[in-house]
């Protein structure tokens, strides 16, 4: 088992290495002539007006919260799905009940209007 993870570890090192090498190669080859005009932030050819890092919109956060419900509970569903073939019918029904609870959360969020884009 551990041996298999060694391969994954080696691959991760290689995967990290590859883009670093490419960017490093570009760093060696590229011209370096910075100037202040060039390094302006792009906003369609004009200087940006006002702060960019602002409190943008909370709605994205609400979607992230709804996602969290599902993501955490999906983690519990994975073991259930894995042993599904050995489960008796009532255990499967219990799983379905659990999913129904998830669906209830979705319906609640839907009713609350959290899924409407404002």
């Amino acid at each position, binding site marked *: 088992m551990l041996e298999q993870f060694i*391969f994954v570890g080696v691959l991760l090192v290689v995967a990290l290495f*590859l883009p670093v090498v490419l960017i490093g190669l570009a760093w060696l080859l590229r011209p370096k002539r910075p100037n202040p005009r060039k390094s302006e932030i792009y906003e369609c050819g004009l200087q940006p007006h006002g702060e960019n890092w602002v409190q943008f919109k909370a709605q994205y956060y609400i979607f992230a919260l709804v996602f969290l419900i*599902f993501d955490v509970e999906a983690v519990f569903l994975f073991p259930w*799905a894995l042993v599904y073939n050995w489960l008796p019918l009532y255990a499967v029904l219990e799983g379905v009940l659990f999913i129904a609870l998830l669906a209830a959360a979705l319906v609640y969020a839907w009713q609350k209007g959290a899924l409407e884009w404002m």
Partner: protein
Amino acid sequence: MESLSRFLAFLADAIVNIGDWIRGLLLGAGLVDPWVSLIMKAIGALVVAFFPLMVVVFLIWAYRKVAARMQGRLGPNSSGTWAGPYGILQTFADAIKMLTKEDIRPQGIDLIPYNLAPILVVFASIATWAVMPFGPRLIGSDLNIGIFYILAFSSAALVVFLMAGWSSNNKYATVGAFRSVAQLIGYEIPQLLAVLTVVMVTGSLRMQEIVGQQEIPLLFQLPVTAFIFFLASMAEVNARPFELLEAESELVCGYFIEYSGMKFGMFYLGEFMNSTAVAALFATLFLGGWRGPWVEQAPILGTVWFLLKMGLMLLLWMFIQITFPRLRIDQMLAFNWKFLVPLALANLCVIGLVNKGITEWFPGGVSTWTRAGILLMTNVGIFLATWGILAALERREQRRRETWRAAQVGEVEVSA
């Protein structure tokens, strides 16, 4: 004659045999086993890491060529400047161009995430290939949590996009980054639930096991699941109907607007790599991976089947990329939360119950074909039910619109 048959036998499982030959060579050179296996793993890792890179180089060319032909153009070709037959060297020329482009560092950026993001985007998409089964004996590492590992790494893209967009100090990039939060995490749920259905039916998280279970490709057993997975994956790789993070005509370039040179190239590469990985994953989960005729005799054919299936999915991806308009953010989210997630939940429950029901109903066991047939019928049922509900909603909406329009017309008449 004998040498020919030996050669053919070698060819039948060429990649594995080459591996064995190298291992023999290393052992012959007097190295001891842990080191040999480590070197073998390093070689394997290099091969696995370069595989998507090579596929992408070809894919970019193919994408341009297919797009050009669909739009009545020629695309890259060797007239004018020499780019090889059919312009196949165009991608290499572009790579060289990107290597020699100046790296413009904009003012006021957050340096660490800004520089880390282009590295991580390629890192995450290469990492998913570790557990992808290329052939019967050809897999980087057949982890017992294979599919879980892939899902984990594919959702890393979200963090990368957020890093790139937020650190760029650009309003367009910020909008792109926020959209990535809403879109990528949203579509992860149906993707996850579709994978759960597959895991439930095949009974394993191990990739080779999932392939092994598909005597009949799961596409023909669970078409609705395949459909959900496909749509969610299109959104996860930021493909055209859900291409909201880049949205060239609105956000110019989205989250990687401030990148130039090779760093831009990394995002470009990452995008194509992710598409390739998703195509490979779909081929593995629903099209039977390397399974196909004569794989028993010549395991190398398994790799060919796998590549063909992956190519088919990539072709589908290209067609959609070239011909579909983009959705708006509210439509994209509504489609996910109000259609795809409920459908995926219902699908999971129904398939779970029916599949268990089959086992309970036939205590003596049941043939694969019967089970597949019943599952297919169930899928048709789910499809018809969904269709009915959607049609009813559409009719209601139509009526509402008509009454509204009638009211408008009435108003105009009154004012006239």
